[in-house]
């Protein structure tokens, strides 16, 4: 496994794994309702990771995942270096990193009690994640699209195309993923799906980054 693949896999497993385990623990401890959140929207991701042991798991796992997200953008910039301009890559990395840092800060301030949580920081951080990532992933997709025309090999291209299409469909059709303190069922459903799509986009680079390695 190359360094690039290690980062892609870790980004996905840490983020999606944390969310899955957090929800499972929250259900077992009775701090979250039982449902299929992708279909029912009975809870949002934030509220599954606030109370009890689920809170510890969520905060540790998501902060860890955010660090890998930051490195994922560094690897992406390296991979695209031969086929894209400096400015476009830097703008892409800027928004991607901003999104990751937003989520990191937004997660770090979560507390078991709603009244004690800094909702301002959390809401802004989470929104920065979704909107920052959407911008960064879009720039990324455009750069990849153009690079393919120059013969650049992107094994995961069609998978990425589907994911970016779904993300934009959600954004346009449902006014995007905007996080709030209390969210409607619809917004919660979108939040779960958008998070899953972003996680899958990170994972899709596993197939592209076989040759992205650390070397002297």
């Amino acid at each position, binding site marked *: 496994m190359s360094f690039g693949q290690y980062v892609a896999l870790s980004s996905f497993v840490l983020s999606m794994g944390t969310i899955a385990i957090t929800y499972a623990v929250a259900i077992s401890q009775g701090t979250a309702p039982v449902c299929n959140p992708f279909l029912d929207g009975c809870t949002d991701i934030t509220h599954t990771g606030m109370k009890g042991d689920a809170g510890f798991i969520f905060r540790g796992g998501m*902060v*860890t995942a955010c660090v890998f997200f930051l490195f994922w953008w560094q690897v992406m910039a390296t991979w695209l270096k*031969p086929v894209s301009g400096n400015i476009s890559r830097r703008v892409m990395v800027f928004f991607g990193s901003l999104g990751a840092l937003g989520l990191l800060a937004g997660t770090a301030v979560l507390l078991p009690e709603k009244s004690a949580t800094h909702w301002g920081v959390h809401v802004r951080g989470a929104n920065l994640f979704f909107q920052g990532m959407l911008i960064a992933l879009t720039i990324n997709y455009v750069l990849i699209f153009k690079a393919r025309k120059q013969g650049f090999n992107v094994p995961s291209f069609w998978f990425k195309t589907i994911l970016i299409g779904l993300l934009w469909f959600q954004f346009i059709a449902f006014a995007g993923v905007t996080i709030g303190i209390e969210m409607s069922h619809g917004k919660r459903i979108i939040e779960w799906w958008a998070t899953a799509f972003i996680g899958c986009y990170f994972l899709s680079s596993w197939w592209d980054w076989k040759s*992205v390695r*650390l070397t*002297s």
Partner: protein
Amino acid sequence: MRITVPQRVCLVAAVLPLLTFAVSYLLSAAGGHVDWCNPYIDGCTTITATGIYYPGAYVLRGGIVSSAVVFVLWWYCTHIWLKDVKDPNPGWGIKLLIWVASLASLTLVASMVILGENMVPSSDHRGLWNFHSITAVVFFVFTSVCQIIMTLYMWRHRDVLSTSGFRISTKMLLAVIQILILVVLIGALILGKETHWLINTSEWWIATLCSLFYLTSYSDWKAFRLMRLEQSQTRTAGGQL
């Protein structure tokens, strides 16, 4: 030459925790939760104490959990670097060392995520405090020992690794100081002579020395970079991209 990705890992692994300690302490002292002092000399408070009350707790939690992940990446980079410059198969001892060091870094994540005002008063939350103490000790001891062993390994193979002179001397100095602190602290604990001052100052110094150790690879990794394999093969052949 531009700074490489592994060099960025070194910088972040050193600077992020040190910055986090400083900001967390300043916020906690300004909030009146810990005393104003030079904790490296006066030992008036522990790093843990700066991460109990908010907002210092947010900073310590976010900063140190992030640092722990970067530590894991540093050990990963070290493993690849050793395979690249010395031996594609560095032996089970080094692989085990890197695994242990990485797992120790993950115990730091566990230690940090439970910190907060939820642990106050300590008498009502003995379980959390015990968990924090045990995982923190595991991190400090295993990380220090792994760094010391890695230093010895690099010393033995300094010519092959091209890490002689100032580079290896810095690593050795940090390792020797860590050994001295650990010996004094463990000795005091065994003899029952430990004091709050000794424990507190040891914590600050060991944490700082562990962080600085990661920076010592910065010079070693000038030519160690993240590349697409097709690029590195073209460079070897003298081609241009």
